[in-house]
């Protein structure tokens, strides 16, 4: 299977929801990857739409750079709605 490429599979489970990564398949080309993904990941009505993407085309953050990459969002509590205290009289906002 060395000559076949690896594809990552994303399935949209219901209309309106995001495609979600479900796993990977080997295939000779994208059309075959699509067919294999259908057979492997949607045998029980799991999806209404499939994306297959060559694994080599994905750029991922590495586990080790976690701190540097996500640090900027950690000290910004004012980005959350719960940071803003309002009087009860205002009601639900």
């Amino acid at each position, binding site marked *: 299977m060395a000559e076949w490429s690896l594809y990552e599979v994303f399935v949209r489970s219901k209309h309106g929801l995001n495609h979600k990564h479900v796993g990977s398949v080997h295939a000779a080309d994208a*059309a075959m990857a699509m067919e294999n993904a259908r057979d*492997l990941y949607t*045998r029980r009505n799991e999806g209404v739409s499939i994306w297959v993407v060559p694994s080599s085309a994905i750029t991922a953050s590495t586990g*080790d750079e976690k701190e540097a990459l996500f640090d900027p969002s950690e000290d910004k509590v004012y980005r959350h709605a719960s940071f803003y205290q309002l009087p009860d009289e205002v009601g639900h906002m």
Partner: protein
Amino acid sequence: MYAQLVETGAKRVKSLDEMSPEERAFQERIDAEIKIEPKNWMPDGYRQTLIRQISQHAHSEVVGMLPEGNWVTRAPTLKRKLQLMAKIQDEAGHGLYLYSAMETLGADRDEEIEKLHNGKAKYSSIFNYPTLSWADIGTIGWLVDGAAIVNQVVLQRTSYGPYSRAMIRICKEESFHQRQGYQILLDLMRHGTDEQKQMVQDSINRFWWPALMMFGPHDDDSPNSQQSMAWKIKRKSNDELRQMFIDQTVPQLEFLGCTAPDPDLKWNEERGHYDFGEINWQEFYDVLKGNGPCNRERIATRKKAIEEGAWVREAAVAYAEKQKQRAAA
């Protein structure tokens, strides 16, 4: 258990103080129940143990199709045939989920399959027993898949993310397997002739002990377990899982109106568990070493499938290449 006797390379478990800083950070992450993902640093022993365990698990799914395949053309009705084919297709799918998880560790699928073929990699001992009657298909679904479920439910919490996610997916599909198996037996016991009922009992007699062996050796004889438990690859010991399986299975056995081939099997009020007799461990090790009733046949069938399918894989590559050239022209 679909993976038995997985070598960890560890003689004993290191304490946190003995570990290098990276190793220590890794162990603390595991102790905090944070999943390990492919790009995280991991000790080589952890990586190699997982490759061995996941590949053994994947091989078991794939070889596990063979005893069932024997009955596709012999299923008693079209309905049963369709159910059996759906189950076999699931097993192929489970093998693929697992090979994918294994590949995230840097292992090569072709190389691991080659290890299966040349005897370096194992698969579950259970698939080396023949399926002699239709009742065996029921018994395999009920007992063999039942034992696999007990193991796999726990493995959903295993420390390696891709393995854990594959297990979650597999567990969702597995309960259909067990229920269809039990229903086959129930049908035979309720509506069958005396001969058919006898066929069920005979099948249980043959598969009972091999099913219990699926969980692997006793904890005391399982030197690799401790390291696997420390790494949280394994979450419960072989003996714990075996006891869980027996406790949940005996009432189902009684409901069928059948018996187990174990005179020592009885409820122990004090322990709150069933007591059971000693497994024939010599048989277990013999089968694992390649001397079970069907070991050679199983591997020969796998090799033949790979060899005879070579032209299909080559043709697929040639076709893809041609399509690419046409699109470019």
